[in-house]
Protein backbone atom coordinates (compact mmCIF):
# COMPACT_ATOMS: atom_id res chain seq x y z
CA UNK A 1 0.00 0.00 0.00
CA UNK A 2 1.21 3.52 -0.78
CA UNK A 3 1.52 5.95 2.11
CA UNK A 4 0.54 9.60 1.66
CA UNK A 5 3.16 12.03 2.98
CA UNK A 6 2.71 15.69 3.79
CA UNK A 7 4.75 18.71 4.83
CA UNK A 8 1.88 20.34 6.74
CA UNK A 9 2.55 21.61 10.28
CA UNK A 10 -0.05 20.15 12.67
CA UNK A 11 -0.21 23.21 14.90
CA UNK A 12 -0.82 25.48 11.91
CA UNK A 13 -3.48 23.11 10.58
CA UNK A 14 -5.40 22.97 13.86
CA UNK A 15 -5.06 26.73 14.39
CA UNK A 16 -6.52 27.28 10.93
CA UNK A 17 -9.44 24.90 11.56
CA UNK A 18 -10.37 26.70 14.77
CA UNK A 19 -9.79 30.29 13.62
CA UNK A 20 -13.15 32.08 13.84
CA UNK A 21 -14.62 28.97 15.46
CA UNK A 22 -17.92 30.66 16.39
CA UNK A 23 -20.14 28.10 18.10
CA UNK A 24 -18.11 24.99 17.34
CA UNK A 25 -17.92 22.43 20.15
CA UNK A 26 -14.60 20.60 20.08
CA UNK A 27 -13.68 17.17 21.46
CA UNK A 28 -10.00 16.21 21.33
CA UNK A 29 -8.33 12.80 21.18
CA UNK A 30 -5.57 12.06 23.66
CA UNK A 31 -1.98 13.03 22.92
CA UNK A 32 -0.94 15.54 20.30
CA UNK A 33 -4.45 16.59 19.14
CA UNK A 34 -5.28 17.60 22.72
CA UNK A 35 -2.11 19.72 22.82
CA UNK A 36 -2.72 21.13 19.33
CA UNK A 37 -6.23 22.30 20.21
CA UNK A 38 -5.05 23.82 23.49
CA UNK A 39 -2.20 25.57 21.66
CA UNK A 40 -4.74 27.09 19.27
CA UNK A 41 -6.41 28.78 22.26
CA UNK A 42 -8.08 27.37 25.34
CA UNK A 43 -11.87 27.61 25.16
CA UNK A 44 -14.79 26.60 27.38
CA UNK A 45 -16.24 24.77 24.39
CA UNK A 46 -13.23 22.42 24.28
CA UNK A 47 -13.46 18.96 25.81
CA UNK A 48 -9.97 17.54 26.19
CA UNK A 49 -9.34 13.82 26.52
CA UNK A 50 -6.17 12.66 28.28
CA UNK A 51 -6.97 8.96 28.04
CA UNK A 52 -9.76 6.59 26.94
CA UNK A 53 -8.03 5.89 23.63
CA UNK A 54 -10.60 5.25 20.90
CA UNK A 55 -13.30 7.34 22.61
CA UNK A 56 -13.01 10.74 20.93
CA UNK A 57 -15.28 10.29 17.90
CA UNK A 58 -17.90 8.51 20.03
CA UNK A 59 -17.91 11.20 22.70
CA UNK A 60 -18.54 13.48 19.74
CA UNK A 61 -21.41 11.26 18.61
CA UNK A 62 -23.13 11.32 21.99
CA UNK A 63 -22.73 15.08 22.18
CA UNK A 64 -23.92 15.67 18.61
CA UNK A 65 -27.05 13.60 19.21
CA UNK A 66 -27.82 15.68 22.29
CA UNK A 67 -27.03 19.11 20.82
CA UNK A 68 -28.41 18.84 17.28
CA UNK A 69 -28.21 22.59 16.68
CA UNK A 70 -24.49 22.81 17.41
CA UNK A 71 -21.65 21.60 15.21
CA UNK A 72 -19.42 19.14 17.06
CA UNK A 73 -15.87 18.80 15.75
CA UNK A 74 -13.75 15.90 16.96
CA UNK A 75 -10.03 16.49 16.45
CA UNK A 76 -8.03 13.35 16.96
CA UNK A 77 -5.01 11.43 15.70
CA UNK A 78 -4.56 8.41 13.48
CA UNK A 79 -3.56 6.11 16.36
CA UNK A 80 -6.52 7.17 18.49
CA UNK A 81 -8.99 6.71 15.64
CA UNK A 82 -7.49 3.35 14.70
CA UNK A 83 -8.33 2.07 18.19
CA UNK A 84 -11.95 3.09 17.57
CA UNK A 85 -12.46 1.83 14.02
CA UNK A 86 -15.68 0.06 14.97
CA UNK A 87 -16.98 3.37 16.26
CA UNK A 88 -17.00 4.69 12.69
CA UNK A 89 -19.56 2.02 11.83
CA UNK A 90 -21.61 3.02 14.88
CA UNK A 91 -21.51 6.73 13.99
CA UNK A 92 -22.63 6.08 10.43
CA UNK A 93 -25.80 4.31 11.57
CA UNK A 94 -27.34 7.51 12.98
CA UNK A 95 -25.10 9.71 10.79
CA UNK A 96 -25.72 13.06 12.56
CA UNK A 97 -25.30 16.01 10.22
CA UNK A 98 -23.74 18.14 12.97
CA UNK A 99 -20.79 15.80 13.60
CA UNK A 100 -17.40 16.25 11.96
CA UNK A 101 -14.43 14.00 12.72
CA UNK A 102 -11.04 15.40 11.75
CA UNK A 103 -8.05 13.08 11.98
CA UNK A 104 -4.67 14.79 12.15
CA UNK A 105 -2.78 11.93 10.54
CA UNK A 106 1.02 11.86 10.87
CA UNK A 107 1.29 8.15 10.01
CA UNK A 108 2.79 7.48 13.44
CA UNK A 109 2.08 6.91 17.12
CA UNK A 110 3.66 10.23 18.07
CA UNK A 111 3.22 10.09 21.84
CA UNK A 112 4.97 6.79 22.36
CA UNK A 113 8.15 7.05 20.30
CA UNK A 114 7.02 7.65 16.70
CA UNK A 115 6.33 4.05 15.79
CA UNK A 116 4.78 3.74 12.32
CA UNK A 117 0.98 3.37 12.53
CA UNK A 118 -1.37 1.52 10.21
CA UNK A 119 -1.91 4.67 8.16
CA UNK A 120 1.87 4.81 7.80
CA UNK A 121 1.60 1.33 6.37
CA UNK A 122 -0.95 2.60 3.86
CA UNK A 123 -4.38 2.32 5.51
CA UNK A 124 -6.73 5.05 4.26
CA UNK A 125 -8.96 6.11 7.15
CA UNK A 126 -11.15 8.25 4.90
CA UNK A 127 -11.88 5.19 2.77
CA UNK A 128 -12.85 3.27 5.91
CA UNK A 129 -15.23 6.05 6.97
CA UNK A 130 -16.71 6.24 3.48
CA UNK A 131 -17.23 2.52 3.47
CA UNK A 132 -18.98 2.72 6.84
CA UNK A 133 -21.45 5.25 5.42
CA UNK A 134 -20.29 8.73 6.42
CA UNK A 135 -21.94 11.28 4.16
CA UNK A 136 -18.60 12.75 3.21
CA UNK A 137 -15.08 11.46 3.79
CA UNK A 138 -11.86 12.64 2.21
CA UNK A 139 -8.20 13.31 2.74
CA UNK A 140 -6.21 16.56 2.46
CA UNK A 141 -2.46 16.93 2.38
CA UNK A 142 -1.88 20.56 1.36
CA UNK A 143 -2.92 24.04 2.53
CA UNK A 144 -5.64 24.28 -0.13
CA UNK A 145 -7.25 21.13 1.22
CA UNK A 146 -7.04 22.43 4.78
CA UNK A 147 -8.76 25.68 3.72
CA UNK A 148 -11.62 23.71 2.18
CA UNK A 149 -12.07 21.66 5.34
CA UNK A 150 -11.89 24.75 7.58
CA UNK A 151 -14.71 26.31 5.55
CA UNK A 152 -16.68 23.06 5.53
CA UNK A 153 -16.84 23.12 9.36
CA UNK A 154 -19.23 26.06 9.03
CA UNK A 155 -21.23 24.76 6.08
CA UNK A 156 -24.40 22.66 6.29
CA UNK A 157 -24.09 18.92 5.70
CA UNK A 158 -26.39 16.02 4.94
CA UNK A 159 -24.79 13.70 7.49
CA UNK A 160 -21.65 12.97 9.47
CA UNK A 161 -18.38 14.00 7.85
CA UNK A 162 -14.86 12.63 8.17
CA UNK A 163 -11.73 14.49 7.13
CA UNK A 164 -8.18 13.18 7.26
CA UNK A 165 -5.43 15.81 7.18
CA UNK A 166 -1.98 14.39 6.58
CA UNK A 167 0.73 16.24 8.51
CA UNK A 168 4.48 16.03 9.13
CA UNK A 169 5.49 13.54 11.83
CA UNK A 170 6.90 15.70 14.61
CA UNK A 171 6.26 16.48 18.27
CA UNK A 172 5.97 20.23 18.80
CA UNK A 173 6.43 21.51 22.39
CA UNK A 174 3.51 20.27 24.49
CA UNK A 175 0.72 22.70 25.30
CA UNK A 176 -1.05 21.15 28.25
CA UNK A 177 -4.70 21.77 29.20
CA UNK A 178 -5.84 20.93 32.75
CA UNK A 179 -5.87 17.21 33.55
CA UNK A 180 -8.74 17.71 36.00
CA UNK A 181 -11.43 15.91 34.03
CA UNK A 182 -14.29 16.95 36.34
CA UNK A 183 -13.30 20.59 35.95
CA UNK A 184 -13.19 20.32 32.16
CA UNK A 185 -16.55 18.54 32.12
CA UNK A 186 -18.23 21.13 34.32
CA UNK A 187 -16.67 23.99 32.40
CA UNK A 188 -17.91 22.53 29.12
CA UNK A 189 -21.42 21.96 30.48
CA UNK A 190 -21.54 25.48 31.91
CA UNK A 191 -20.63 26.76 28.44
CA UNK A 192 -23.86 25.11 27.24
CA UNK A 193 -25.85 26.55 30.15
CA UNK A 194 -25.96 23.25 32.04
CA UNK A 195 -25.46 23.03 35.80
CA UNK A 196 -23.51 20.76 38.08
CA UNK A 197 -25.04 18.62 40.82
Amino acid at each position, binding site marked *: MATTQSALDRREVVARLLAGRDGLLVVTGLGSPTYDVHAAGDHDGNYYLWGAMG*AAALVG*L*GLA*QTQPDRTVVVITGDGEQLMGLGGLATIAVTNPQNLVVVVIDNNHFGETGMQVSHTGHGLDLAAVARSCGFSEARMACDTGGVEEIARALHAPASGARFFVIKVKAENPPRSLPPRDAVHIKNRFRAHLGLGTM
Partner: protein
Amino acid sequence: MQLLEAKVFGGAVTGEDTAKSLDQGLLNEDWPSQLYRVLKAARVRQVSYVPDAGHSELIRLFAADPGVVSNVLTTEEEGIAIATGAWLGGSRSVLLLQSSGVGNCVNMLSLVTMTRTPLLMLVTMRGEWAEFNPWQVPMGLATAPVLTAMGIRVMRAETPHDLIETVESAATLAFDAEQQVAVLLSQRLLGAKKW
Protein backbone atom coordinates in the same frame (compact mmCIF):
# COMPACT_ATOMS: atom_id res chain seq x y z
CA MET B 1 -30.56 21.19 32.02
CA GLN B 2 -33.88 21.23 33.73
CA LEU B 3 -35.24 23.49 31.00
CA LEU B 4 -33.80 21.36 28.24
CA GLU B 5 -35.16 18.17 29.70
CA ALA B 6 -38.52 19.67 30.54
CA LYS B 7 -38.85 20.77 26.96
CA VAL B 8 -37.86 17.43 25.57
CA PHE B 9 -39.86 15.38 28.00
CA GLY B 10 -42.97 17.50 28.09
CA GLY B 11 -45.15 14.54 27.28
CA ALA B 12 -43.13 11.85 28.99
CA VAL B 13 -44.23 9.38 31.63
CA THR B 14 -44.13 10.95 35.09
CA GLY B 15 -42.84 9.48 38.33
CA GLU B 16 -46.44 9.30 39.51
CA ASP B 17 -47.40 7.23 36.50
CA THR B 18 -44.54 4.89 37.22
CA ALA B 19 -45.49 4.45 40.86
CA LYS B 20 -49.05 3.68 39.82
CA SER B 21 -47.94 1.16 37.24
CA LEU B 22 -45.63 -0.46 39.78
CA ASP B 23 -48.49 -0.81 42.21
CA GLN B 24 -50.83 -2.30 39.65
CA GLY B 25 -48.17 -3.89 37.87
CA LEU B 26 -45.86 -6.72 37.86
CA LEU B 27 -48.61 -9.28 37.76
CA ASN B 28 -50.11 -8.04 34.53
CA GLU B 29 -47.13 -6.47 32.81
CA ASP B 30 -43.83 -8.00 31.79
CA TRP B 31 -40.65 -6.65 33.35
CA PRO B 32 -39.10 -5.19 30.17
CA SER B 33 -42.11 -2.88 29.82
CA GLN B 34 -41.80 -1.90 33.48
CA LEU B 35 -38.12 -1.26 32.98
CA TYR B 36 -38.86 0.92 29.97
CA ARG B 37 -41.29 3.01 32.04
CA VAL B 38 -38.76 3.41 34.84
CA LEU B 39 -36.07 4.56 32.43
CA LYS B 40 -38.46 6.98 30.73
CA ALA B 41 -39.45 8.34 34.14
CA ALA B 42 -35.73 8.82 34.82
CA ARG B 43 -35.66 11.00 31.67
CA VAL B 44 -33.34 8.72 29.69
CA ARG B 45 -33.27 9.86 26.10
CA GLN B 46 -30.41 7.91 24.62
CA VAL B 47 -29.74 4.18 24.66
CA SER B 48 -26.75 2.23 23.37
CA TYR B 49 -26.52 -1.52 23.14
CA VAL B 50 -24.85 -4.61 21.88
CA PRO B 51 -27.85 -6.90 21.46
CA ASP B 52 -28.61 -9.58 24.00
CA ALA B 53 -31.65 -11.84 24.04
CA GLY B 54 -32.40 -10.69 27.59
CA HIS B 55 -32.58 -7.07 26.43
CA SER B 56 -34.44 -7.66 23.18
CA GLU B 57 -37.83 -6.35 24.31
CA LEU B 58 -36.32 -3.23 25.90
CA ILE B 59 -34.29 -2.58 22.73
CA ARG B 60 -37.48 -2.87 20.68
CA LEU B 61 -39.40 -0.48 22.95
CA PHE B 62 -36.66 2.15 22.74
CA ALA B 63 -36.31 1.74 18.98
CA ALA B 64 -40.02 2.53 18.63
CA ASP B 65 -39.73 5.64 20.83
CA PRO B 66 -39.11 8.86 18.86
CA GLY B 67 -38.07 10.56 22.12
CA VAL B 68 -35.06 8.28 22.50
CA VAL B 69 -32.01 7.95 20.25
CA SER B 70 -30.83 4.34 19.89
CA ASN B 71 -27.26 3.40 19.04
CA VAL B 72 -26.32 -0.13 18.04
CA LEU B 73 -22.64 -0.66 18.93
CA THR B 74 -19.89 -2.81 17.49
CA THR B 75 -18.40 -3.24 20.97
CA GLU B 76 -19.71 -2.29 24.39
CA GLU B 77 -17.00 0.23 25.30
CA GLU B 78 -18.34 2.55 22.60
CA GLY B 79 -21.46 3.06 24.69
CA ILE B 80 -19.44 4.48 27.57
CA ALA B 81 -17.94 7.13 25.31
CA ILE B 82 -21.36 7.91 23.80
CA ALA B 83 -22.93 8.28 27.25
CA THR B 84 -20.14 10.66 28.21
CA GLY B 85 -20.87 12.84 25.19
CA ALA B 86 -24.58 12.77 25.93
CA TRP B 87 -24.05 14.00 29.48
CA LEU B 88 -21.72 16.74 28.25
CA GLY B 89 -24.58 17.94 26.09
CA GLY B 90 -27.22 17.62 28.82
CA SER B 91 -28.94 14.31 28.31
CA ARG B 92 -29.15 10.96 30.03
CA SER B 93 -28.02 7.72 28.48
CA VAL B 94 -28.29 4.04 29.36
CA LEU B 95 -26.04 1.21 28.16
CA LEU B 96 -27.46 -2.28 27.62
CA LEU B 97 -25.00 -5.15 27.43
CA GLN B 98 -24.34 -8.76 28.29
CA SER B 99 -21.84 -9.81 30.96
CA SER B 100 -19.28 -10.85 28.33
CA GLY B 101 -19.28 -7.23 27.13
CA VAL B 102 -18.17 -5.90 30.50
CA GLY B 103 -14.74 -7.30 29.71
CA ASN B 104 -14.62 -5.14 26.58
CA CYS B 105 -15.22 -2.00 28.63
CA VAL B 106 -12.41 -2.07 31.15
CA ASN B 107 -10.12 0.81 30.13
CA MET B 108 -13.01 2.89 28.80
CA LEU B 109 -14.55 2.88 32.28
CA SER B 110 -11.74 5.24 33.31
CA LEU B 111 -13.47 7.87 31.16
CA VAL B 112 -16.57 8.01 33.35
CA THR B 113 -14.77 7.63 36.66
CA MET B 114 -12.20 10.34 35.85
CA THR B 115 -14.82 12.76 34.56
CA ARG B 116 -17.41 11.77 37.21
CA THR B 117 -19.93 11.25 34.46
CA PRO B 118 -23.18 9.44 35.25
CA LEU B 119 -23.20 5.91 33.89
CA LEU B 120 -26.08 3.46 34.05
CA MET B 121 -25.29 0.02 32.64
CA LEU B 122 -27.85 -2.79 32.61
CA VAL B 123 -25.92 -6.05 32.35
CA THR B 124 -27.69 -9.31 31.53
CA MET B 125 -25.75 -12.13 33.15
CA ARG B 126 -24.55 -15.27 31.44
CA GLY B 127 -22.42 -18.08 32.75
CA GLU B 128 -24.06 -18.42 36.14
CA TRP B 129 -27.54 -20.07 36.27
CA ALA B 130 -28.08 -23.28 34.31
CA GLU B 131 -25.53 -22.19 31.72
CA PHE B 132 -25.06 -24.61 28.83
CA ASN B 133 -22.15 -22.79 27.17
CA PRO B 134 -18.94 -22.96 29.21
CA TRP B 135 -17.41 -20.12 27.17
CA GLN B 136 -19.74 -17.75 29.02
CA VAL B 137 -18.48 -18.81 32.43
CA PRO B 138 -15.13 -16.97 32.77
CA MET B 139 -16.52 -13.51 32.10
CA GLY B 140 -19.68 -14.33 34.07
CA LEU B 141 -17.47 -15.00 37.08
CA ALA B 142 -15.38 -11.90 36.46
CA THR B 143 -18.18 -9.41 35.73
CA ALA B 144 -18.73 -8.00 39.23
CA PRO B 145 -15.05 -8.10 40.27
CA VAL B 146 -13.96 -6.34 37.07
CA LEU B 147 -16.54 -3.60 37.48
CA THR B 148 -15.66 -3.15 41.14
CA ALA B 149 -11.96 -3.04 40.34
CA MET B 150 -12.64 -0.14 37.96
CA GLY B 151 -14.58 1.80 40.59
CA ILE B 152 -18.07 1.03 39.30
CA ARG B 153 -20.87 0.51 41.82
CA VAL B 154 -22.45 -2.92 41.28
CA MET B 155 -26.10 -3.70 42.11
CA ARG B 156 -27.83 -6.97 41.42
CA ALA B 157 -31.42 -8.05 40.77
CA GLU B 158 -32.69 -11.61 41.21
CA THR B 159 -36.42 -11.08 40.63
CA PRO B 160 -38.55 -8.78 38.44
CA HIS B 161 -39.64 -6.77 41.46
CA ASP B 162 -36.03 -6.39 42.61
CA LEU B 163 -35.10 -5.29 39.16
CA ILE B 164 -37.56 -2.42 38.89
CA GLU B 165 -36.70 -1.02 42.31
CA THR B 166 -32.99 -1.51 41.77
CA VAL B 167 -32.98 0.26 38.42
CA GLU B 168 -35.00 3.17 39.86
CA SER B 169 -32.47 3.47 42.64
CA ALA B 170 -29.52 3.08 40.27
CA ALA B 171 -30.88 5.80 37.97
CA THR B 172 -31.04 8.23 40.88
CA LEU B 173 -27.52 7.34 41.97
CA ALA B 174 -26.21 7.74 38.45
CA PHE B 175 -27.95 10.85 37.21
CA ASP B 176 -28.51 12.80 40.43
CA ALA B 177 -25.39 11.79 42.34
CA GLU B 178 -23.11 11.46 39.26
CA GLN B 179 -22.17 7.89 40.10
CA GLN B 180 -21.22 5.06 37.78
CA VAL B 181 -23.56 2.15 38.32
CA ALA B 182 -23.97 -1.31 36.82
CA VAL B 183 -27.14 -3.30 37.52
CA LEU B 184 -26.62 -7.01 36.97
CA LEU B 185 -29.74 -8.90 35.83
CA SER B 186 -29.26 -12.41 37.10
CA GLN B 187 -29.52 -15.27 34.67
CA ARG B 188 -32.12 -16.81 36.96
CA LEU B 189 -34.33 -13.78 36.37
CA LEU B 190 -33.82 -13.94 32.62
CA GLY B 191 -34.21 -17.69 32.40
CA ALA B 192 -31.59 -20.03 31.01
CA LYS B 193 -31.06 -19.78 27.27
CA LYS B 194 -32.87 -22.52 25.39
CA TRP B 195 -30.64 -24.58 23.09
